[in-house]
């Protein structure tokens, strides 16, 4: 086994002397965490809504007052008064405003008659997020308008009381598990796959193959060193990311231990996958070419950025075999819910089984000669 240790020593010495590699494989996941976290995580604010009041009655004034209150308070939207509906619709089509709230001429009369009073929201539905926010906000506003001034002492309608089990999770925290797995993957690809194939094409492996090292020692040397590098990267992002995302109590030693366990198992699973893909490759362009494809196919279906329940069936099928899914699930349990090992046992088991299968296949395919 001392020969495998020599390979590991060589790989880690080279790694230490390659600050560019270290920085590059860590900067991208951190950048993604921060940029995606803040880009998608914030509440939508200051949408522009044109109000066309064709009624001018008391209920219409009440709607305009409520709109003004939202504009001043939650700031979900700002209101612009239009006298002419045609002008408002033209501005909507030209993208100057996000929606037009029209209060029709007979609105007040219908309110008083209790005869299906209606207001219309004509909205720009090309942006789903903005549109859903606007509809939600307007919906609550109209519901508030419908509340009687003095309600019955005992409510006759059923209501839903929501109990939140965990503290509020900002989107950046939701993204963190995916970023940790991504940093492990980046190191596996750059520090593992790309360097492995580059060394092979430079003839460095020829130097090893003429020594008495066994096939098993060679494979162990390459994979253990790759795992160590990926674990270092994953651990760094876990610590730095927890601080950036504001994960509560980030340095709880028992949780750190459990997190480290998941990171090690994930790193080994991804190194095994990489080694299986690269074992017969000689062209140094290939790992670079499949880098982006693999990243997309593994990261996005994993549930790291969006719940898997929203995926079409074919994507859910990818998610089922994707090792990222299990790593992200385990890390979410630990980081967002602070669960014990029991809650991540299934994930660890899958990742280990995945590693064993991939590594066995790679070992069978590995050639001890050129």
């Amino acid at each position, binding site marked *: 086994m001392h020969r495998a240790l020599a390979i590991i020593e060589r790989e880690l*010495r080279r790694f230490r002397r390659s600050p560019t590699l270290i920085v590059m494989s860590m900067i991208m996941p951190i950048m993604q965490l921060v940029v995606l976290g803040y880009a998608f995580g914030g509440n939508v604010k200051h949408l522009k809504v044109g109000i066309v009041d064709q009624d001018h009655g008391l209920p219409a004034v009440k709607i305009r007052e409520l709109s003004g209150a939202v504009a001043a308070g939650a700031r979900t939207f700002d209101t612009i008064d239009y006298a002419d509906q045609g002008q408002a619709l033209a501005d909507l089509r030209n993208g100057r405003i996000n929606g037009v709230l029209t209060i029709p001429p007979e609105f007040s009369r219908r309110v008083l008659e209790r005869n299906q009073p209606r207001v219309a929201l004509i909205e720009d539905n090309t942006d789903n997020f903005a549109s859903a926010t606007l509809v939600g906000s307007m919906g609550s506003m109209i519901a508030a308008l419908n509340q009687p001034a003095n309600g019955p002492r005992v409510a006759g309608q059923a209501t839903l009381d929501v109990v939140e089990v965990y503290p509020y999770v900002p989107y950046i925290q939701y993204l963190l598990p995916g970023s940790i797995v991504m940093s492990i993957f980046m190191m596996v690809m750059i520090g593992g796959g790309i360097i492995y194939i580059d060394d092979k094409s430079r003839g460095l492996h020829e130097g090893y193959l003429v020594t008495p090292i066994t096939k098993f020692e060679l494979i162990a040397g390459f994979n253990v060193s790759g795992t160590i590098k990926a674990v270092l990267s994953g651990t760094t992002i876990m610590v730095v990311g927890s601080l950036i995302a504001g994960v509560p109590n980030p340095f709880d030693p028992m949780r750190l231990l459990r997190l480290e366990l998941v990171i090690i198992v994930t790193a080994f699973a991804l190194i095994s996958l990489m080694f299986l893909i690269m074992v017969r490759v000689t062209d140094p362009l290939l790992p670079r070419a499949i880098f982006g494809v693999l990243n997309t196919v593994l990261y996005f279906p994993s549930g790291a950025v969006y719940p898997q329940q929203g995926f079409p069936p074919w994507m859910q099928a990818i998610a089922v075999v994707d090792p990222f899914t299990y790593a992200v699930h385990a890390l979410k349990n630990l980081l967002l819910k602070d669960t014990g090992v029991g809650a991540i046992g299934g994930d660890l088991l899958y990742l280990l089984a995945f590693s064993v299968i991939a590594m066995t296949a790679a070992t069978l395919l590995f050639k001890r*000669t*050129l």
Partner: protein
Amino acid sequence: MNAIDVRNVVKKFGDFTAVNGITFAVEAGEIFGLLGPNGAGKSTLIRMLTTLLPPTSGTALVNGFNVVTDADGVRKSIGVIPQATTSDLELSVRENLVIYAKLYGVPREKRTRLIHDLLESVQLLQWADKPVKNLSGGMRRRVEIARGLVHEPRVFFLDEPTTGLDPVSRVAVWEMLLKIKSERDLTILLTTHYMDEADKLCDRIAIVDHGELKALDSPMKLKASVPGRNVLEVSFGSEPDAWTRTLEALPDVEGVTGHDHMFRIASRNGPATTMALMETAAQSGVPVHSLSVQSTTLDDVFVHYTGRGLRDALQEPSAQDSPFMLRRK
């Protein structure tokens, strides 16, 4: 026992036969050169002998170990310097040697002393802790030579050890190899297409072409085996008619070629032909403008055995042709 015993070894890549039934033996303590043009099969042969490629048929023994059935025995007793630079550029000279000493299982107490001695032999002791990437092409080659010897092998394989080096670095590598060889019990097999290198270093030379052994002997005997031991290059002021035929009739002449008053005369006996040439020229009143007598070189031997045709052929692209391949300086 021979250090290397190659018997009827064949290597085929699909339909292409790279090595076609080569047989030779290298005695212990020899420096043996494999000489041949590009694509002759030298590197394939050396790769089979160093266990990197299995032969298609035939047997090869290195230090008595079969390269197929006892590859581990072969690997333990050989040192190999492949054609490409295979040292880690980011690591220091010493680190490169230490890693390889560990790969060969050299005990710790022996390792430090051995590495020190080797670095001294290749004159890199003062650069021992510098990264290899900061060394020149010649120095990198010397690092590799030291690295290949770090486990005290009995047979040392060098695949084109001086290709790409400047003349001074080449001579330095030769001298170091000869010095190292004189200090230890070592058999060396090297491939080259530099004739002067083979002439200077090798006890015996095998000329390989198209995967076959064309000639095998000492440099001296190989030179002697080629028609015309000497070549006379002579120019005249003016020539009478049928002058070429007169020159061909001179003693020991094997052939005459010439144009523009310049003639090349191949001779079995340079001095005798020269004497007769001068006499004939004087008698005929032909002024001799210049005259030089050259011995046969290995270049002549090489061309004699391998011919002048270019070996243009398509081949499978090699990983080493990649744009990412590090070229040796």
